[in-house]
């Protein structure tokens, strides 16, 4: 399992500027630990794919160092690196059968035919395509083609498997199944996986650790729960899941406490010492909705319901308390009844605990 002392990929101050001046990656440093499932997450154009392609050797960093398994990769060609990649388009060779595709890497290594045949079968069994070795790629579905790409990369027993948006071309149902499958596969083979994705659900459900990127910069690296519950900036808080944000002014009182004043929530005291403009954030599922004024150490405000969206298992209730946007509360429909029991226009209280509130300074 993940050992904090043993990074398999070390990236130190890597920059990539394309001719023409576009800076795709800006001074990124991060470690990927041996055996972990690491995700690079961010909106399109944030530099995550460029970073992955630098690990594979298809892009050359403008500056900085990249070490894989302790070895500097600066002068190592893509075909000599101990990594293999699953391409977004899968890149399954159309002129080779499934078995030939999977065996391609071993054939280049010059392995004996018998060993290739055995290991191809083994790899195909691993991705549950054991019976399709003789097929040509255009006889396969998208999901099967991706499994071929996976088997083709894993058969080389790389130190790190790089996956570039591997699930983006699949439909929703298949994508969910493949997420579980990839995690299972990663545990079975014990190889470090680095996955690039723009889908936060994908990253949260699969990865041990996630690096969130924006405009070529890594904003935060943390485990899924930490990213969700303790984002370090507005961008991460907003990008991962939904969040209600309230602008306010902070003033540290000098003994470890900060007073934050917001127009709609009044003055609230938090730990820490921040000064200047901040945002208070709260996740929708932590917001409670009630007709009566709630009591206790809570942040609370009242306003009319502007919208109710029913999703079966839960409902989204929007309450306008006079902030920039209505407050969103996720209400679990825990009891069998017709909807959440509130109506549009009804005046309701929204409330949440002070310790569920995030104070975001940047």
């Amino acid at each position, binding site marked *: 399992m993940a050992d904090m002392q043993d990074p398999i990929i070390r990236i130190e101050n890597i920059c990539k500027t394309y001719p023409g001046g576009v800076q795709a990656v800006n001074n990124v440093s991060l470690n990927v630990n041996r055996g972990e499932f690491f995700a690079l997450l961010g909106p399109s154009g944030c530099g995550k794919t460029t970073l992955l392609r630098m690990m594979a050797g298809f892009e050359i960093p403008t500056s900085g160092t990249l070490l894989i398994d302790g070895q500097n990769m600066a002068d190592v060609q893509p*075909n000599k690196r101990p*990594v293999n*990649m699953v391409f977004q388009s899968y*890149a399954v*060779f159309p002129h080779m059968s499934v078995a030939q595709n999977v065996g*391609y*890497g071993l054939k280049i290594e010059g392995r004996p035919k018998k060993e290739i045949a055995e290991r191809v079968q083994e790899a195909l069994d691993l991705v549950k395509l054991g019976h399709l070795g003789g097929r040509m790629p*255009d006889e396969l579905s998208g999901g099967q083609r991706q499994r071929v790409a996976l088997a*083709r990369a894993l058969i080389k027993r790389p130190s790190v498997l790089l996956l570039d948006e591997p699930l983006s071309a699949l439909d929703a149902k298949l994508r969910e199944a493949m997420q579980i499958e990839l995690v299972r596969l990663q545990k079975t083979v014990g190889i470090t996986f680095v996955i690039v994705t723009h889908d936060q659900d994908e990253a949260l459900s699969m990865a041990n650790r996630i690096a969130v990127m924006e405009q070529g910069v890594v904003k935060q690296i943390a485990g899924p729960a930490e990213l969700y519950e303790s984002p370090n900036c507005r961008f991460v808080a907003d990008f991962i899941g939904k969040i209600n944000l309230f602008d306010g002014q902070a003033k540290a009182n000098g003994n470890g406490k900060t007073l934050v004043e917001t127009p709609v929530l009044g003055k609230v005291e938090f730990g820490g010492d921040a000064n200047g403009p901040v945002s208070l954030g709260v996740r929708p599922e932590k917001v409670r909705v009630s007709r009566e004024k709630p009591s206790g150490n809570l942040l609370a405000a009242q306003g009319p319901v502007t919208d109710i969206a029913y999703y079966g298992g839960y409902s989204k209730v929007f309450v306008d308390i006079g902030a920039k946007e209505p407050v969103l509360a996720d209400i679990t429909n825990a009891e069998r009844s017709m909807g959440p029991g509130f109506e549009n226009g009804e005046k309701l209280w929204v409330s949440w605990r002070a310790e569920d509130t995030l104070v975001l300074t940047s």
Partner: protein
Amino acid sequence: MEHWRKSAGAFWAGFLPPTLWLLAFFFVPLSLIWAFSFGEKSGIIDIDLVWTFENYARALEPLYLGIFAKSLWMATITTFICLLVGFPVAIGIVFAPPKMRMWLLLLVILPFWTNLLIRTYALIAVLRTRGHVNFALEWMWDHANSFLTLIGLGSFSLLGERFEPLQMLYNNTAVVIGLVYVGLPFMVLPLYAALDRLDRSYIEASLDLGAGHIRTFWSVVVPLALPGIASGIVITFIPTLGSFLTPDLLGGPDSQMIANVIERQFKSANHWPFGSALSFLLMYATFFGLAVRALMSRNEQRGIR
């Protein structure tokens, strides 16, 4: 919009003129030539249609078969050289920066904008005894000689008494050079189209799996560009096989190709029936080539399936 089958008026308006054009200026003349090939010369310009196979029998005499074989050989060599030269050119254009690509393609197409006759005469100016290649060689010879004199070896005539210009014109080599020059764009363009369509991630995947660039070229690029290679071969080979201007102007007495013979039958020899028979034999040979290509592409599709 209505389906074209339903609006008969619009269909005929679009369909009829080109059909009539083809009928009048392609099908009718071709039929005449076909008929002539079974005819007999009965006067200076008169031809009797006697449905004889005599013209074909004469066309299959060793003399003409030899010229046929030679034409096929020259066209084969030319196509092969075009492929050898054209492939790196096409790869170079595909991998050039996007801004450069348009200009490089323009350079390939540029010769089409100049008359073939003018280009061929220009080639003569380059290749002839007192042409640009020989001038350049002579210049180098002079300088090498001065250098030898300078280091004290001038008196040994190491490079010969005097400069001997290369005889590059009026032989088979000149014809092949000329044919390659004419045929190259026909080879480069389909190759470029095929390589441009090729998804780069196939090349990257091959490199990623441990293959070097040469291995990747042979096991991924070439197989995936095969349809383009086949098209390039066919559309270079066919016009080359039927070319008569280049061998006429650049060739020697022994480098005539079949089209030169055909031309002579229609002009100086004034034997249209025999020329027609030769033309049709050339056409059948071309059809044979196209059939092979069609068969190949069918196997290709079956291979990918």
